[in-house]
């Protein structure tokens, strides 16, 4: 029964092995330099790791993120539509399947024009 867990065990050993070996290789091959406080601190995409935990972001980030999610979801819905498109054509439901997607995209298009006109995508205003 336990042999079905063998892949999990392999995954575990590969993961541990990879981490350990990379660290070992970097210690063995890398040039050792003097350490200082900045070098020893955790690397977090260039941001200072210590500071206020609630930095203030411009609200524009959220607007852009929201728009991104909306259009991302639009594409997500297009995939199953595209996959079933041929079946609907074969059943003679071409108009229905075309207009349903047009309606969906149309709604998002109006919303996009609205957002554009309201300056949601202009960073400077």
């Amino acid at each position: 029964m336990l042999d079905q867990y063998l892949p999990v065990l392999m995954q575990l050993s590969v993961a541990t092995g990879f981490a350990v070996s990379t660290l070992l290789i970097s210690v063995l091959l890398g040039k050792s330099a003097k350490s200082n406080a900045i070098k020893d601190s955790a690397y977090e995409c260039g941001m200072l790791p210590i500071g206020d935990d609630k930095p203030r972001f411009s609200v524009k980030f959220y607007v852009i993120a929201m728009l991104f999610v909306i259009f991302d979801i639009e594409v997500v819905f297009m995939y199953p539509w595209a996959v079933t498109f041929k079946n609907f054509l074969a059943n003679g439901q071409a108009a229905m399947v075309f207009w349903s997607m047009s309606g969906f995209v149309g709604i998002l298009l109006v919303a996009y024009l609205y957002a554009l006109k309201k300056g949601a995508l202009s960073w400077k205003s």
Partner: protein
Amino acid sequence: MPAYYLEILILLLGFTMLGIEAFSSNRSRSGIAVLGISGLFVVLLFLIIAVPSSEVPYDYWGIYHVDKWALFYKAIAILTTLLVLVLAKDFSSAFKKYTSQSNEFSGIGEYYCLPIFVCAGLMWMASAKDLITIFVSLELVTIGFYVLVSFMRRNVGSLEAGVKYLVLGALSTGFLVYGIAWIFGVTGHFDLSGIAEALNSGEIEKKPIIFAFALLMVGLGFKVAAVPFHIWVPDVYQGTSMPITAFLSVGSKAAGFIVLLRVIEPFLNSPLTSSSVILILSFLVCVTLFFGNLVAIKQTNIKRLLAYSSIAHAGFLMMALPAMESGFHSKLIGPSPMESISFYLAGYLLMTMLCFLVITIVSSLTDGENIDDLRGLGARSPLLAFAMLVGVASLAGIPLTVGFFGKFLLFNIAIQYAVFSGSWYIVAFAVLGASAGFYYYFKIIRAMYCGGAEQDGDQLALTISTLSRVVIIVLLAGVILCGVFPKLILGFL
């Protein structure tokens, strides 16, 4: 014209208004409101005239159902939204104080557009006979309301209301989805007719299906403001702007009830679940009637008072639900529970909107929302005071108003059902609630006519726009005429 064009028309109207808001250089936004009001009126005419009777009842792909109930509740949704826009137009002067410091982006245009999209959601709810459609349309409504409730950005009360509505709304949605998942797991169906078949097939277990039903009731109880899922109601009603309070109180409740009626029907008619469902419903009715009416007595803020009154009315409406049980149906004399509830909701629309219209006009001038702020209204503006008098009397259930006849129909069902099943305690709670109602509604009337205005500030002239004046008179006539000739509404059912 097929009935599903109505929602598309509503959506097109909303998009047109949104487009004008974005692209028009005109700073005044009242044109958008006028377009919305007239557009909704045209769609209402289409609903009455253009839907061919050969299509009623009709089922589109199992996800969109048209019958006379669907059309009736669609009409309620459109009428509610239309009146909300009238209210919003009157409220706009008070509204601008709370949205933006400069007048650059007041957001009033969007404030007129969003109710249109909510209206489309309410109309889809009226046609939904499938748990997925119910869920999607319900979310369309709720997400629209999340924005509308917290629309007055500079008002802390409005933001608080928005956060409370968002958190509790998300919680109730969670219960609803979990209930839907359980129902699908037990019965294997999303559509209500399939669920009804599965319930009567004798192949499913009782415990999980009752659990699923209870979860659904939490989600829908939140929508119709039934105790104990009412916690959000007083705070949100008080915090948000007046037109949205009216919209929540009428639109959300009416659409919640049509969904509730459709969802509980298969459960009530199945011998497997019937007794437990009746027990759950009876409990909800009693606590809702008791709590809503008795807590309302203590309120001094008029929006809070109307919030508890809205809970109490949910209690009266739910009183007819247990009577939908199939064994009782043939024994009932008079209109069926479905007809009585629909009549009551239509009347509730007329009288609540009348009250909110008066309060909006008074409070947008004086900024006061307490019962005391209505003092001396009888002398300041006889029309407004009389409209409020009739609205409040109808909410209490005085004869010759539509509220009386609605209560009469519901009591008729409750008493006959009590004779049938022995559930006299429901009638007892309803009598207690109705009599408490007379006390707290009459506090408003006393303030208007017996209070006497003494401060100078109270003497400000009340200006009523022509549109509001016409709407007030129409609603006033509706409340009285439908109370004297109930056929005016019952004829549609």
